[in-house]
């Protein structure tokens, strides 16, 4: 910085530094008095701070210090926060993956539950779901499909890698919950056994 800023300049600098909002010259003078040439001081300060990390700028007749525009990125630090998808989001994602492209109404029909607006937003924010045009039916509803990031995240080379209904059945993933429970309690489920075989 300049070797010897005079006291008037220092006072202007300090007043602008602590101010809660941009100051008009009149407001600055309320603090620093009339003992100097304010216009010159502001111009000098502007020059001295030009090119630094903090700049003195004038907007609509008010002056304030602000950080240089190119440094905005360092003042906002992003931090990854691992989070689990909600059950509703997971179900919606699964339905889109198996049935894409699907409209919201179709998702609701399959889930048997309404889909909250935020649920699709979360999936789109995660980058796994995208709008894929509109269905050419009355109302022209938006339809949704999965993205390449979806495939990447779940380690799939294509949607065809998703296990089919028969695979799910074989893995026991289609067992209604109550039936599975009955099996666990050791009661006989003989008749159905044969059907499943």
């Amino acid at each position, binding site marked *: 910085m300049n070797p010897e800023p005079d006291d008037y300049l220092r006072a202007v600098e300090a007043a602008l530094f602590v101010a809660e909002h941009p100051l008009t010259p009149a407001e600055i003078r309320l603090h620093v008095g009339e003992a100097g040439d304010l216009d010159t001081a502001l111009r000098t300060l502007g020059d001295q701070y030009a090119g630094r990390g903090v700049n003195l700028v004038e907007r609509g007749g008010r002056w304030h210090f602000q950080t240089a525009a190119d440094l905005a990125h360092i003042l906002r630090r992003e931090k990854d926060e691992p989070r689990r*998808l909600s059950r509703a989001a997971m179900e919606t994602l699964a339905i889109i993956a198996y049935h894409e492209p699907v409209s919201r109404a179709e998702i609701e029909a399959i889930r*048997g539950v309404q889909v909250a607006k935020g649920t699709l937003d979360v999936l789109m924010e995660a980058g796994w779901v995208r709008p894929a045009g509109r269905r050419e039916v009355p109302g022209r509803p938006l339809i949704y499909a999965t993205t390449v990031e979806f495939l990447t995240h779940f380690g799939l080379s294509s949607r065809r890698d998703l296990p089919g209904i028969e695979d799910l059945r074989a893995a026991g993933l*289609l067992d209604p919950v109550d039936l599975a429970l009955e099996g666990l309690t050791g009661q006989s489920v003989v008749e159905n056994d044969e059907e499943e075989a």
Partner: protein
Amino acid sequence: MADLFTPAPIPAPHTLTVSFDAWEGPLDLLLGLARTQKVDLREISILALTEQYLAFIDSARQLKLELAADYLVMAAWLAYLKSALLLPRQEQPDPSPEDLALRLQLRLQRLNAMRDAAARLMARDRIGRDVFPRRAPEGLRLVKKAQWRASLYDLIATYGQIRARTQPVVHTIAVRPVMTLDEAIQRVGALVGAALDWTRLESFLPPDLDPPKVKSALASSFVAALELARQGRIEIQQDGIFQPIYLRAPMPADHRGPLL
């Protein structure tokens, strides 16, 4: 801070207008008195200080000021110290009054040092009074970016659950391995004609049947035998309950055996 920067009122017995609220206890009062000696605390005369304190307390009493107990305790102790200091050395008690006086002096020095330190601390350039940070800093922001976690297993398991939950439950009636009554009537009717003598019902069943079908065939064949007997096309014989059932073609009337 007013009480810091205005020097403590210097008490002098002849101009005593002091409120005891001004003192933070007897040690504080002693220190105030000691400062009136205007010497380094290391040079202070404890005997003179003791006399000052006792005179001060006396004046306060004459003015009927309320004295807190600890001021009086200190007065009593100082009166003892004074008398001990005045004794010839060989008659002095143990610990020696000189040690006690030294201890008091050291305490006064320490309190004085901290009082000065507090004053110098308070006189520093303090934030919000002498120096100012920005009043409305924008703040460094930490933006939390959600890193969504979900596994392929979660995805397919969830899909399976949806399907299991929402698909209409279809009950399929299994086709059972049975022999119908018509089949049995035909079979038993055909075979019994070929048998010359009593033959067990089981012998009319088809060979190589699965165990579940055996029961069905047996039951059907039994009903078929009853039906054929009713029509007079065969005869049935059983020797007792749960005994084997025998069938044969009908004999002429005179050869007829006992009926069931």
